[in-house]
């Protein structure tokens, strides 16, 4: 698969501004809110009804759909519009299952971004939403790859969207997945305390089956759930082998270090066992943790292999030589582990 075009709304200035030419935003605390654009292209009558996840997905996806003819839309989101979903559920209780309005219900559905994008772009092709928690993005890529292999599509809009919902944030904080201590994002990795910092945003790609002036190649993606360290390394070896790659072909690892002392050891073990000499990049100190954080990583990696300079804040272990092939390894809460290989074209 090849990345023809891409777009990203994130806690960094990745949409309208030149993220790679400016200093990244450093956040304090455990919520990294998206830097949203003005959404000038979305009719105000539609924008006012959109929840945040729909707004971000539409804002990132519509410009790509207007520029490229696509055969379908595949979106990954773990929670969808959770803020609207909670509002709707609370209204059921507050108004004793009386008259309810459809807006919060529609906006709260995980499939709403993919459906909304299809309606707005009059795209009547394949439309699917993957809500597979920490592997939502990897499942989107597998779906796209299968469509390309079967010849059912040549070009697809594929992306992920996640929003910070305050109720979910409280639940995850109580569960120990979000940091309770105030920390600045530039000091996140290696801080030694439990929990990650929450991010949000939308990342969209136009993927094509053939290389037609592509920005980068998505060589392969794979995933594994509840592995042992040996399972994980074996899975990564298999991924490299089936793509004819040696360890030395990987110019950099992009690892999902989240600053969570309970689960960052996975990255240490992975790098030490399989890639002891390879440079390491991080991304969650810039974008925060989301269940589909690997979509941000893929956007980041595609830009880097396409010649953008590496922000110093992303260098975890120095890289030597050109960046042509990046292996992204990310896990969510230590349970679901995904790999994506991005290569220069």
């Amino acid at each position, binding site marked *: 698969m090849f990345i023809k075009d891409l777009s990203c709304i994130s806690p960094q200035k990745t949409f309208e501004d030149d993220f790679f030419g400016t200093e990244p935003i450093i956040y304090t605390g455990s919520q990294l809110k998206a830097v949203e654009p003005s959404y000038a292209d979305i009719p*105000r*009558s539609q924008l*006012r009804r959109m929840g945040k996840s729909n707004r971000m997905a539409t804002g990132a996806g519509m410009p790509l759909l207007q520029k490229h003819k696509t055969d379908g839309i595949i979106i990954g989101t773990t929670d969808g519009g959770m803020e609207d979903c909670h509002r709707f559920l609370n209204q059921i209780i507050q108004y004793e299952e*009386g008259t309810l*309005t*459809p807006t919060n219900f529609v906006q709260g559905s995980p499939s709403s971004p993919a459906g909304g994008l299809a309606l707005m772009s009059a795209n009547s092709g394949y439309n699917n939403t993957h809500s597979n928690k920490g592997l939502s993005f990897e499942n989107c890529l597998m779906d796209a790859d299968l469509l390309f292999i079967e010849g059912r599509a040549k070009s697809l809009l594929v992306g992920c969207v996640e929003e910070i919902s305050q109720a979910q944030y409280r639940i995850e904080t109580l569960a120990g997945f979000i940091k309770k201590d105030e920390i600045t994002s530039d000091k996140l990795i290696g801080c030694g305390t439990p929990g990650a910092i929450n991010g949000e945003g939308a990342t969209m790609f136009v993927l094509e089956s053939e290389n037609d002036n592509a920005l980068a190649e998505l060589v392969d993606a794979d995933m594994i759930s509840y592995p042992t360290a040996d399972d994980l390394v074996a899975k990564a070896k298999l991924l490299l082998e089936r793509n004819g790659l040696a360890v030395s072909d990987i110019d950099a690892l992009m690892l999902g270090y989240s600053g969570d002392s309970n689960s960052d050891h996975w990255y240490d073990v992975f790098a030490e066992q399989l890639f002891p000499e390879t440079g390491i990049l991080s991304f969650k100190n810039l974008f925060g943790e989301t269940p589909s954080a690997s979509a941000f990583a893929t956007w980041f990696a595609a830009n880097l292999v396409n010649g953008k300079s590496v922000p110093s804040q992303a260098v975890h272990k120095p890289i030597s030589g050109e960046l042509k092939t990046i292996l992204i390894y990310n896990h969510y809460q230590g349970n679901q582990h995904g790999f994506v290989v991005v290569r220069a074209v």
Partner: protein
Amino acid sequence: MEVAELKVKLKTQIIEYLNLLDFTPEDIDDEDQLFGPKFDLDSIDALELSVLLEREYGIKMTDPAEGRKVLVTVNTMVDYILANKAEA
């Protein structure tokens, strides 16, 4: 509650329920057509307005034809609220 006070309250609630991003209560005239070009409302907004009447004023509209007469301007909505609250 004075009628003028009720109108301002209703305008604020309309903005809140319909999330009219670009409007303040002062921007809404009492005789503005709610379903005219100024606000660009649709059938879901009509449903939101009828829910507003039920939740905020305890008035349930059961006849759809009634909605077409009531959800016209701020004035028609206020008249309807006053008439039905008085009955109650």
